[in-house]
């Protein structure tokens, strides 16, 4: 469903992504982990072309996202890829409900009433129906991130990308966001998650990609990755995680 083919990306002389070849199959949950600055976020942001690449291709459902295309075609592609940000990025001038309604209504031209009904159902699903009319500033971090997930789901994307969705949260709010992500995975959603939540990776992921210095060094099932990591860098990463 998502396929990276020989992807290279530079920031000036700095190699941010090197020879990435990997794919996420339909219905699969992939967790991308690795130390800070290893290129995880850059990688996930190339999938909907929030980051450009210098060579290679990123295919979504067979279509190269980075091919030259009209703005409208790129917008349509992006609308099919749900994206959840580390910093939530809810629209602060809109209520939770309006945040979820806006894009189906304005981008997909779903009728406003229908978009509202579906948004309400999605807020219900993430456990925030009673906060539908609150503004983002009135919500806790965990609640904001759940609204952000509902907002992405409102476009009915066949795949969801999560870029460190719990890194900006207080510890006691991490669980509520992960619970929503777990239930999505259980429903068969194709997911690519950059996260440091190793418990989530162990329980939910079908495969783990370990990245360092712009490369994917290891891909394995969670059992194999956490039980017997092959790459020395991955071994050090995991032992550093366990030592505190």
């Amino acid at each position: 469903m998502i396929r990276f083919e020989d992807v290279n990306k530079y920031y000036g002389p700095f190699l941010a992504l090197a020879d990435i070849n990997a794919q996420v199959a339909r219905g699969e949950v992939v967790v991308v982990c690795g130390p800070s600055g290893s290129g995880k976020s850059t990688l996930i942001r190339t999938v909907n072309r929030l980051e450009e690449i210098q060579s290679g291709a990123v295919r979504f459902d067979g279509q190269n996202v980075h091919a030259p295309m009209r703005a409208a075609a790129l917008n349509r592609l992006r609308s099919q890829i749900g994206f959840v940000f580390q910093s939530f990025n809810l629209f602060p001038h809109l209520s939770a409900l309006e945040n979820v309604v806006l894009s189906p209504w304005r981008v997909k031209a779903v009728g406003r009433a229908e978009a509202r009904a579906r948004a309400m159902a999605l807020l219900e699903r993430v456990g925030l129906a009673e906060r539908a009319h609150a503004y983002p500033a009135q919500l806790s971090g965990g609640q904001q991130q759940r609204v952000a997930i509902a907002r992405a789901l409102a476009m009915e994307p066949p795949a969801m990308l999560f870029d460190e969705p719990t890194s900006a949260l207080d510890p006691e709010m991490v669980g509520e966001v992960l619970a929503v992500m777990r239930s999505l995975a259980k429903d068969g959603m194709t997911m690519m998650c950059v996260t440091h939540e190793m418990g989530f990776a162990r329980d939910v992921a079908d495969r783990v990609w370990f990245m360092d210095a712009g490369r994917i060094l290891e891909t394995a099932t969670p059992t194999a990755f956490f039980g017997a990591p092959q790459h020395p860098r991955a071994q050090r990463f995991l032992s550093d995680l366990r030592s505190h």
Partner: protein
Amino acid sequence: MSLFSNALEIVRDNWLLLLVGQYPNGPLGGIAATLILSVLGIGLAFPLSVLVALARLSHRAWLRLPALALVYAVRGVPLLMIIFWVYFMFPLLLGVSVPGYATMLCTLVLYEGAFLSEVVRAGIEALPRGQMDAARALGHGYGGAMRFVILPQALYNMLPSILSQFVSTIKDTTLGYVINVPELTFAANQINNRLLTKPFEVFLILALTYYAVCFSLTRLAGWLESSIAARRAGPAPVQLVAAQ
């Protein structure tokens, strides 16, 4: 004391002239003309400023460069020069005589529009990048993201600055005097020419009138600013739950 009683007497004898000029026996003038010019000026300058700001932020050089040139030219030239320029050039270019009101209005729109465009641009650039990212990730085009996500926030945040630009506009209308626009300063000067012996009193009245109008608007801007700051911070979630 005699200064104030003189001033009061002048106001008593000339309040209608100060208020509306020679209307209905002549053109509308006085405070009414000043306010109408200012409101129309800022009202028309505002949409212009949004367009200029968007052009300046565009990656298309043929949009960006003319906008840049306009802003730099207007910022580098005294308002009085622009008034003369419009006053003498427009009739030459158009081949018809342009009334003083229209000349002044055009000048104000151009001048305040250029300044306001910098305010709008700053407001757009001050928003976190994640707002645009989130809108684009949901499939909004650049225009849709601007219209539904960026501009509503930027313009709301900029309301105090827009209001203080309005105060500047009111003060700038005094320059209409040089091309015989019968606004408030013009009316005061008419009175002074008639009385001849009381310039200090007359111009004290003029100064106080401008001060009263501009000071109250400045206070309004200050109040807006603090109420926007309060709204942006949002009530704490805990309090809100308790209030329900």
